[in-house]
């Protein structure tokens, strides 16, 4: 059972000592909570703060690259910027925001009152939040006691030997390692909780084949977290032993291998992409049917495709390493494995299209983001197939084409679905609907900015511009493209600010949502918005995949059509 504290404790505006005590009570309540809904919201808030920070870092990099021979930031600062941007976005924005939504939604969707292990849940949140703080503390403490601090500058995949004590003096790399280790511990704790919740806490009648697809996809994501985070943790322990205890794992002078780090990192790194994208698919699986007013097309195929993606994604990591020179057989294997993953992904895209087909589409903001996601994810997948071809990758590897490709996945697909999820589920969390008008501004500004930036970013990559350079000569022919790319970043930044303003404005002034603003079908909409600490007064029991449809249409319940 969750904590018995009230869920609507907002500080009132009366000043004085009364207000101060009240405020402390609220803070105390949130810090000590084990309620999955509050932990979910805290995950989301901390990820949003880091999203703004890491987005600001991206903006600084785009200012630096907008024109040739720019001296806006120094090369050293540029190295720190891209390292911190990448690390933050993957570990302290992507993971926590997706875990936050999962934490909030899974128990509600399966008719449970909390996660399986509420205290472990709080532990997972705080340990990964401290990981994020530790990463940014490096700006102050990166050089230890020797002088002014510096952030890590080894890139988000921190290839050896850049991380060896000889080339990374001071403690900036240690902060990076520890931050990732803590974030990994938190991720495993939360994933473990999600699996145990999904398997052990379902309400009566919620069989596996009746679970909302979102819960299914989070289940597969969590299982992938176990297998992917392990190698990362192991590699970080090895790196720490190298740096602190004088071990030789990645020390080539003692016979160690720098390539081994690459393998270990990408054995984590590629499944990580799918760990991030599966929750985005999960949001699409819930949002597209509700706003098409149709049940999802091909539920079993969706589940099977998800499990297929989970398995195949474990055998594609070395497509990040074609330029290392692994030999023809390894290149062939990883090319084929990478191409095969397009099959289950294609099944998903066709299923979403078939769900839209003939539906009565409601173009609300969540649906607009979902449709943008479909287009952009398709293009991201197509450039992915291009890059999976080893000879083409030799040409394009480590160029801006690669940067454009993976930002198409991370921003064009994942971030778009995260925005959609905000517009869809924040009414449940706050009790108020986000403004549609501001939402449309946010959507158009962001989508235009996204396409200006990342469509045109492919071109300098094709022209040979390598990633991670802090500036370039004027005669390379890259200037006009970089200028367009940088101008798109401004649109995205304004769009993101409109979004944050919308969140704040709607929290106080938004239209009241009621229990079920979208006339949806899954259990989270059957309780009040925001739900009470115990979620459901009586534990529901369900008879089909769309329990609220059954409730609203007793004359024609889904359970009549179950096989």
């Amino acid at each position, binding site marked *: 059972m969750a904590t018995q504290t009230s869920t609507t404790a907002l500080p009132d505006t009366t000043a004085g000592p009364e207000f101060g005590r009240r405020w402390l009570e609220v803070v105390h309540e949130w810090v000590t909570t084990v309620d999955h809904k509050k932990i979910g919201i805290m995950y989301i808030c901390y990820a949003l703060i880091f999203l703004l920070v890491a987005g600001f870092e991206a903006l600084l990099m785009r200012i630096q690259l907008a024109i040739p021979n720019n001296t806006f930031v120094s090369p050293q600062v540029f190295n720190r910027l891209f390292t911190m941007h990448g690390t933050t976005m993957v570990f302290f924005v992507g993971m926590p925001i997706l875990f936050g939504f999962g934490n909030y939604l899974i128990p509600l969707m399966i008719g449970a009152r909390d996660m*399986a*292990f509420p205290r*472990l849940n709080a532990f997972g949140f705080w340990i990964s939040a401290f990981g994020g703080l530790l990463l940014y503390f490096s700006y102050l403490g990166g050089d230890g006691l020797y002088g002014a601090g510096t952030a890590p500058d080894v890139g988000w995949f921190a290839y050896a030997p850049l991380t060896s004590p000889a080339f990374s003096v001071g403690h900036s790399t240690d902060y990076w390692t520890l931050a990732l280790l803590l974030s990994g511990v938190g991720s*495993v704790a939360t*994933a*473990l*909780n999600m*699996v*145990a*919740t999904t*398997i*052990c*806490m*379902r309400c*009566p*009648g919620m069989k596996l084949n009746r679970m909302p697809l979102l819960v299914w996809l989070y289940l597969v994501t969590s*299982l992938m977290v*176990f*297998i*992917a*985070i*392990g*190698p990362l*943790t*192991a*590699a970080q*322990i*090895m790196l720490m*032993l190298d740096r602190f*205890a*004088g*071990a*030789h*794992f990645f020390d080539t002078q*003692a*016979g*160690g*291998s720098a390539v*081994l780090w690459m393998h*270990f990192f990408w*054995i984590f790194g590629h499944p990580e992409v799918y760990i991030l994208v599966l929750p985005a698919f999960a949001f699409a699986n819930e949002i597209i049917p509700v706003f098409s007013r149709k049940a999802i097309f091909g539920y079993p195929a969706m589940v099977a495709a998800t499990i297929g993606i989970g398995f195949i994604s474990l055998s594609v990591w070395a497509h990040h390493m074609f330029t290392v020179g692994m030999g023809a057989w390894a290149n062939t294997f990883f090319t084929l494995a990478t191409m095969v993953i397009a099959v289950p992904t294609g099944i998903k895209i066709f299923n979403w299209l078939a769900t839209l087909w003939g539906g009565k589409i409601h173009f609300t903001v969540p649906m607009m983001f979902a449709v943008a996601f479909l287009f952009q994810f398709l293009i991201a997948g197509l450039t992915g197939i291009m890059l999976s071809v080893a000879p083409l990758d030799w040409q394009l590897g480590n160029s801006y084409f690669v940067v454009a490709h993976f930002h198409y996945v991370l921003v064009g697909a994942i971030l778009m679905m995260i925005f959609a999820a905000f517009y869809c589920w924040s009414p449940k969390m706050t009790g108020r609907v986000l403004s549609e008008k501001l939402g449309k501004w946010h959507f158009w500004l962001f989508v235009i900015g996204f396409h200006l930036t990342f469509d045109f970013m492919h071109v300098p990559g094709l022209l040979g511009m390598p990633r991670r350079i802090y500036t370039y000569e004027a005669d390379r022919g890259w200037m006009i493209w970089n200028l367009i790319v940088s101008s798109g970043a401004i649109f995205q930044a304004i769009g993101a600010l409109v979004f944050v303003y919308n969140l704040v404005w709607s929290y106080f002034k938004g239209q009241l949502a009621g*229990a*079920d603003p979208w006339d949806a079908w899954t*259990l989270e*909409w*059957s*309780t*009040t918005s925001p739900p009470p600490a115990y979620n*459901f*007064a*009586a534990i*529901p*029991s*369900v*008879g089909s995949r769309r*329990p609220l449809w*059954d*409730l609203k249409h007793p004359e024609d*319940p889904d*359970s009549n059509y179950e096989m």
Partner: protein
Amino acid sequence: MGGTAVLFHNPREDWKLPSRGIVGMVCLIIAEAAIFIIFVVAYVFYLGKSLTGPTPRDVLELPIFTTICLLSSSFTVMGAVSALHRNKRNMCSLWLALTVLLGAIFIGGTAHEWYNLIYRDGLTIKTNLFGTTFYSLVGLHATHVVFGLCMLSLALLFSLRGQMTSKHTERLEVLSLYWHFVDGVWVVVFLVVYLFGR
């Protein structure tokens, strides 16, 4: 409060789901196994690649006795679980004490081995790649043994104070799962490091 979707199918009596403790521990074991696999891969990858000695063949001895101790502790912990299940609390304490003792002998054996390796053979984590991979793999396993021993000692303490009853069988079973995993990892380490890698 909105209406909850109460439907007619599936009376609650026949709705039974797995225990969350066991599912959680299985998840933890999968995640830990992934970590160990990477350390084993690193060990195998660096076999014979050390630039200087000593080599495994020079210094490693088969730890047969301590291996037998650790593996039999898997059976004693099973004895503890089944004794608790039948509410024989004294037997449970006895089995737990035996488990802790066997685990402690194993750790003592590892300590003795490491002492000899460091002071007799001059092998440390800094010496060469063998030292690096050996101490990290065996050390990671030993850390898990120590953690398991702490938890088992805690269970023993509860059992001796009479605070453990057959209601707690499932919790002890979760702990025993972890202990079986630690033993299983040792089988792999023993085969890779002491048998085939020597």
